[in-house]
């Protein structure tokens, strides 16, 4: 399987995503340069964390105009898996590939710490190997992770089960300090209508080795590999 990781100017978690998808998930992981519309035959695309274009103007607001994003839009429209992590999630929202927006954290400060996430839906390429309600311990590191969306869209997201991850306590239940940024309805990640595009603020690529504190993030990468493998099997069988 080939996983492409987009490199925008200012991306700084691109190496980490390549390492997680390549070395740890055992896939072919390739960087995709922002100026190119060629996704190099990738089976899935990750928009990594960082500060694309310095977060100038607004997080993700400039990156959405990169040539590579035209290719990503087509790729997503074709139903292919796209994952936006942190700044990648912000870019997906700015690009209109995901609903909502990410505001300054409620506490006004950048926050870097492990949080607990509850997996709300397993019918996405990035949660297929998880159990519904599974709790993952994954770090956040962002200044703008306060997810907002208008009430009708929130209703729709709930109805269509498109909230994929929620901040929670260790036992999976809501907890007072669980939400690190004030996000609406404790939302940590959402999916597109087609469920193939997923964005989340926490960094699964930082939770892939026990020595670093948690390997719960591997579940996200394993889900992707499992989904792609199942597709390949179908194609071969078909």
């Amino acid at each position, binding site marked *: 399987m080939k996983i492409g990781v987009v490199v925008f*100017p*200012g991306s*700084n*978690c691109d*190496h*980490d995503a390549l*390492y*997680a998808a390549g070395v740890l998930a055992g896939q072919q992981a390739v960087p995709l340069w922002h100026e190119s519309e060629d996704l190099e035959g990738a089976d899935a695309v990750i928009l990594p964390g*960082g*500060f694309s*274009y*310095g*977060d*100038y103007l607004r997080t993700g607001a400039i990156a959405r105009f990169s040539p590579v994003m035209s290719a990503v839009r087509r790729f997503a429209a074709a139903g292919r898996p796209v994952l936006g992590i942190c700044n990648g999630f912000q870019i997906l929202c700015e690009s209109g590939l995901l609903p909502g927006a990410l505001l300054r954290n409620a506490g*006004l*400060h*950048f*926050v*870097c*710490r*492990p949080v607990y996430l509850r997996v709300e839906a397993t019918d996405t390429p990035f949660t297929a190997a998880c159990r519904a309600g599974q709790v993952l311990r994954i*770090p956040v*590191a962002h*200044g703008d992770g306060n997810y907002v969306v208008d009430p009708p869209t929130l209703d729709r997201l709930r109805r269509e089960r498109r909230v994929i991850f929620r901040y929670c*306590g*260790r036992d999976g239940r809501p*907890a007072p*300090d669980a939400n690190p940024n004030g996000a609406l309805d404790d939302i940590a990640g959402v999916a597109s209508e087609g469920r193939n595009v997923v964005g989340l603020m926490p*960094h699964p*690529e*930082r939770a*892939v*080795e*026990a*020595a*670093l*504190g948690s390997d719960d993030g591997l579940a996200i990468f394993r889900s992707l590999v499992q989904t792609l493998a199942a597709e390949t099997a179908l194609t071969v069988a078909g």
Partner: protein
Amino acid sequence: MPFSAAQIARQGLTLAEYQRICDLLGREPNAVELAIFGVMWSEHCSYKSSRVHLKGLPTEGPRVLQGPGENAGVIDIGEGWAAIFKIESHNHPSFVEPFQGAATGVGGILRDVFTMGARPIAIMDSLRFGPLAPGKGVSETVAARNQALLEGVVEGIAHYGNCFGVANLGGEAEFDPCYSGNPLVNAFALGIARRDAIFYGRASGVGNPVIYVGAKTGRDGIHGATMASEEFSEASESKRPNVQVGDPFLEKLLLEACLEAMATGAVVGIQDMGAAGLTSSSCEMGGRSGTGVDLDLDRVPQRETGMTAEEMMLSESQERMLLVAERGREDEVFAVFRKWGLDAAIVGEVTAGGMLRVRHGGRVVAEIPNAALTHEAPRYQRPVAAPPSLAPLDPPPGAWPPAVSCAAAFERLLASPNLAAKRYIYARYDTMVRTNTLVAPGAGAGVVRIKGTDQALAMALAGRGRYCRLAPREGARLAVAEAARQVALTGARPVAATNCLNFGNPEKPEVMGQLVEAIAGLGEACRALGTPITGGNVSLYNETLGRGIDPTPVVGIVGILSLAGRVCGWRPPAGHFRAPGEAVLLLGAAPPLPPEEEVRRMGATELADAVLGAVWGLPPALDLERERALHELLAELVGRDLIFSARQVGLGGLALSLAKCALARSVEEPETPFVGARLVLPSGAAPGSDWLELFAEHGGRVVVSCALASAAAVEELAAARGLPCRRLGETIPERLEIAGAGGRVLISMPLAQMAEIWEHALERQVSAEAVAYV
């Protein structure tokens, strides 16, 4: 003479120095040349007051590949890799403009590291401010300003490091009235490179092009180096334009472009434009290679029009580098910088003859031998007087033994900003980016692994201003010992040091006395602990309105931790207890002291200052030989996986060390149950002996926890090294109970109550206005 005395003084030069310039040039300088001399001969760039004394420091060792004199120090860490690291001050700019001052401090130290071909993988900071709360001679206004400085500095560090994408492993933050007018912001960075791919700041190869890369030059930061070499006064607010403005996004691009350009093989030498910008980078590169550099300022990328030669030569615009490429291969360099959207322009050429020649508007505006600006800069043997005795030797009448109870003192120390949890600060830093962080802030040392190898690097910073106030030599030794001890707690072997010497005005003989003594102490400790100094910086003139800071040498120690043979998922011992039912031991002990000295050596403790409100006597005791034996013992204990946790006894003494062992985990993992301990200290019957046991800060001591079944093995290994090892008790759930001889309870507190005090003590002192100020 074409210049008035005032004009010369404005460049920070004395008349004698002016005469020396005339002698070196064989003529009078013109205005541009005078400005160039002014900045290169400033204290900040020339180290003219400290250099003769720094010579005594140990700078060589089997692992040292590059000692002081380059952009950063380099050590061999094995498996073909090198670690490149340094610490540098940005005190003056951070006082004038805290956010940008601290941000560009981080930016500057990162460039020092990646200009040598290393990718930065960790940063740390050593911060000192005046008290955040009013009282004890600190007015409401001053306290409010200190809060704003803290907020600005922390936000600036977070802004720059987070965006650049380097893990911040914490460091230290302390508060004392002497830093009210002079906060200290010392930034440390460490990067790694292949041993055979280190780049140096050298302009070799006559005829090679000199290429300017990175941000355009503007009028910001002009005379920043000169500002950093002066005392501050009430007019210092007007120095705000001297502070540079940082752009971490641009620096990130510059990092990637520089590393990629270096990989082409076309880069001969490279140096960042830090203090004194274009001037220092060009003359220092030439100076090191014995070559000259011709610069044509008309070709320098500029973001403002009408800049004069002086402005361009002295600008400290950030995120710029000067590199020398192999002639004929310029296009390879240009292609890389174009890819990253950065300016790159040939602005000159390496020449024979050692002359820095600057052209502007088609004519030569400066012509100075590089050596005159570098090797020939003045060195002063400034008058040195014995450091003044700043406190009485014995405690004030009635102060000792303290009138309060040990438990009350303990509770107050938990809330002391110097001892309270620093999560309020480091929670804003990205501590994990690049996924190497094995030990994040909060434990004492930070640890990062090196992907693709069996190695990890541990690092820690320490400074002890109050100790140095009483005895600079002993204080400096204690700072080295503490930083090395923190590193050793992880199981790493301390191998090298970097230092930042923060002092007052060197023109005062007693300040020189402090400097000379502190350097001697640094040298002694670094020699004894096997950690040669590979570089650093000296920050003098930390005075405002004539009030100087405590002499504050800050030491950074780097250690190597081998992960070979470790099971997958192994991590160094934690800084907190693991589970109830485990043994708690104290390794090491204070050297035996006569009774009256015991009390004298309590006078610099946090207990004395924060609870008793008096400082007297001498710093805590330290035996360097035992300290080294302790580090070796720790490496052995960790190597054999015998201990679960390790924490040094430092500020606040054994009591606070135990408290942190019980509390540190809850800060990081709020939903985990508390693990405390029930302990008995063998304090004697003499008055005050409980106080000595609980709150003395003598060096060479570490609290460890281990399985009950392993305690005997730990004791044996300690005994084999001639080190005392005392079993203090066992871990228990939810409480910390400390008893003295005969079972008298000294401290007994639920951890939930302790956590409530300790975790939020710092942020409780910061007002909403200070937060909003940033």
